[in-house]
């Protein structure tokens, strides 16, 4: 069983499109996160939810909208995709906010 699973693993799309990435964790953790990793491997937090409530919303364009239907799921919807959105997006979860994360395997988004 995969602890934190993301779909899709790869996503290639044209500029201007709208796309979603899904994340599910079966660890029973209360907190989930989205991180963006750029081409230089830098990991930057985007959002965090604790038990379905948004607790972190870093400076991210409004085109990015997270949704947590329950504490085991955190999805990321991106509107009007731009070239600069190309990156690897990682979902993670932790038992408590700010404690050791378990990461998913990432979604490589390529905007052309």
């Amino acid at each position, binding site marked *: 069983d995969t602890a934190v699973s993301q779909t899709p693993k790869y996503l290639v799309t044209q500029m201007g499109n709208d796309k979603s990435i899904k994340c599910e964790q079966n660890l029973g953790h209360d907190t989930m996160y989205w991180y963006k990793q750029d081409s230089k491997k830098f990991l930057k937090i985007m959002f965090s939810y604790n038990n379905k409530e948004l607790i*972190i919303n870093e400076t991210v364009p409004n085109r990015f909208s997270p949704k947590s239907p329950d504490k085991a799921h955190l999805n990321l919807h991106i509107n009007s995709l731009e070239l600069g959105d190309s990156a690897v997006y990682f979902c993670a979860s932790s038992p408590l906010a700010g404690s*050791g994360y378990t990461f998913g395997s*990432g979604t490589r988004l390529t905007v052309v």
Partner: protein
Amino acid sequence: GESVGLHLPTLSVQEGDNSIINCAYSNSASDYFIWYKQESGKGPQFIIDIRSNMDKRQGQRVTVLLNKTVKHLSLQIAATQPGDSAVYFCAERGGGGNKLTFGTGTQLKVEL
């Protein structure tokens, strides 16, 4: 060998040698630190953590050292193996914070 993990430098070591990966952090209020290993095409994986009330912690073949005076963290890997080849990240949590902030990573290459 040693490196400073600020600009994704590359640390090359011979198989069987010890590796030292360094990390500088900026938040004197950080109370919790973690080292992650990221292999190609995968998400970061937890290696070892340390709380700010400690200065050393050992795991299997790995040791983390924390020097709060100079805000410096290091990861020592004993008898480095080819499977240790990866990008290594340090992460810190601000005091009472609810997220981890990652350093820029160090690429470790193990030469046979």
